[in-house]
């Protein structure tokens, strides 16, 4: 009984405060303040749920207007290769393609680096090194994304251009945005994976050492597989973070919905497009305006799908020790 548990844990504190008098009423006495706090906490929880419901409602309502409009054909929406609302072209592929390209690029950077960092921190680093490194890494996650955006545009892009030549690499390109986004989500991957690795019981490692495994073998063949579900969940959360990331791609990836697989060309992601279009003087009744809600809905569905998937993975592949 959860209630019971709460009463017991709060018992000792109660004893301290009321010098044993409370002993008789332990678990019985009504405390109005407690109810007040519970109510307040419930309201806090409810607000976040209501906000989510409200967002889903607005997204759904406005995108329904979009899909119901005679200019929009659902099949063309998913298969069309041009997105130009001003001339009635609503093919979302270029936007989705760019979003996937930047996210992939980000994961290519963040997965190997993040996992290496996680393995190092949990298996190799001394307590002191860990105490220094981990907070520094988490600072990376605290840098405002607009700073990353300008870093991509004014440092990463020139770097790519100096390596590959300015004619190969456009000034706005998905590769530079993706790489910098990888740096942004690196702390997310490493920190969540490290949590998963640290949660693996010590007895497993000791058993591995006992069988004569080296440190590397223990880390890669015992600890990593044991923490796989947590790591997979971390990666999926990181992907959905990358898909939803806005500022970096709005600044550095480009501002035209181009369908291209070349990461050195400019292309516009879903989030980038929403930012750009809602920044102009768009009238409320126009189909352009409704179209950004349809894009928002697609984004929402993608991230929701990824999150559901990550929960499934955690549930299915969870290895229970102890």
């Amino acid at each position: 009984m959860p209630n019971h548990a709460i009463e017991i844990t709060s018992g000792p504190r109660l004893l301290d405060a009321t010098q044993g008098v409370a002993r008789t009423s332990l678990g019985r006495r009504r405390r109005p303040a407690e109810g007040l706090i519970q109510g307040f906490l419930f309201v806090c929880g409810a607000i976040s749920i209501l906000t989510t419901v409200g967002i889903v409602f607005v997204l759904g309502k406005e995108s329904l207007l979009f899909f119901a409009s005679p200019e929009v054909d659902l099949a063309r929406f998913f298969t069309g290769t041009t997105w130009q609302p001003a001339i009635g072209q609503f093919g979302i592929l270029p936007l989705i393609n760019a979003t996937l390209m930047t996210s992939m690029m980000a994961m290519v950077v963040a997965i190997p680096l993040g996992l290496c960092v996680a393995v190092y921190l949990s298996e190799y680093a001394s307590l002191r090194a860990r105490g220094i490194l981990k907070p520094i890494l988490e600072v990376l996650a605290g840098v405002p994304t607009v700073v990353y955006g300008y870093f991509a545009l004014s440092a990463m892009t020139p770097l790519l251009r100096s390596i590959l030549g300015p004619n190969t690499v456009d000034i706005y390109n998905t590769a530079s945005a993706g790489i910098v986004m990888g740096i942004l989500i690196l702390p997310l991957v490493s920190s969540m994976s490290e949590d998963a690795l640290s949660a693996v019981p010590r007895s497993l490692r000791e058993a591995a050492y006992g069988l004569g495994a080296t440190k590397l073998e223990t880390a890669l063949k015992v600890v990593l597989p044991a923490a796989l579900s947590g790591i997979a969940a971390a990666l999926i959360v990181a992907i959905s973070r990358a898909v939803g990331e806005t500022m970096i791609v709005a600044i550095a990836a480009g501002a035209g919905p181009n369908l291209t697989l070349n990461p050195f060309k400019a292309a516009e992601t879903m989030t980038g497009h929403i930012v750009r279009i809602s920044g102009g003087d768009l009238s409320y009744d126009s189909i352009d305006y409704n179209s950004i809600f349809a894009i928002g809905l697609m984004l929402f569905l993608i991230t929701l799908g990824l999150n559901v998937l990550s929960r499934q993975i955690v549930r299915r592949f969870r290895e229970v020790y102890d």
Partner: protein
Amino acid sequence: MRRILVSALLLIAVIATACAPATVAPAAQPAVTSTAVPAAAPTSATAPQGNSELPEVNPLEVKGDIIAAGSSTVFPLSERMAVRFKDEGYSGNITIDSIGSGAGLERFCKAGETDIANASRAIKSSEVESCQFIGREPVEIRVGTDALAVVVSKQNTFVQSVTREQLAKLFSDAATKWSDVDPSWPNENILRFIPGTDSGTFDYFVEDILGKDKARALSAANQQLSEDDNVLVQGVLGSPYAIGYFGYAYYAENADKLNALSIEGVAPTAETVDQGTYPLARPLFMYTTAKILQEKPQVAAFVSFYLAHVNEEITAVGYFPASEADLSAARQAVLAALSN
């Protein structure tokens, strides 16, 4: 594991909320308003006099609200004049909506709900008719001139001047490579950087150069669109094969890094714009009516103030002053409207 789950859920919530503002953010509709209470001293500000110059306006003595709507190009200029009008003592509200010339004239002529329509083109005869239909006889007030600059990076050494036909090819699906436009130009992709579809600049260019055919403009390859002119400047700077167009103001700010092309052999300068020989220049107007000017002294005061001081502000906004003849014609028109 539990910790991961919790942090995963937290992240979901963060992502969901982080995504949300961008998607529900309403389209920007800048407006200048103030909530100041109109001051006392209700005296008529403008009493028409016999001479040809408009009477001096004392903004301190003006009260009542002013509603203007229209061109997003005129908007920064009108906003600046409105701010100055307030700084000098006007205590009413000025609302200026940046909704585009066509929409502004529609609100002025059909709904008849605004005092002033801002426009970056002359009023059309159909619009004059609908104005007259609701009993409004528009008075045209020229306030300045805007010029479009077609720009390339200073690294571009092969193009200094283009014709209108070449412009049409450079900014439409008719060409992909520079050599498609002129065989003597390099066989490289044209990288285009143009203003977004909501902007008056885009509309003006498409109307003037591409015969209003938006589809041709938007189907061009390697094209980036942005409402933010700095994005366009950055983009054009990025490659010798990039080209873009935007208001002259942004070219002027970056004249050390960008080259403005001559159109039909005419370079954009104060003289060519003033003489009307530069092809991509357009007049900026305000429209109001004699009746509004007479019935709402605050509108008459604002317009007179505008015409008296517009040339002190216009270059700072990045536009060109209208010729003295046009400005004095505008003053005459206002004066005539006030005196009959």
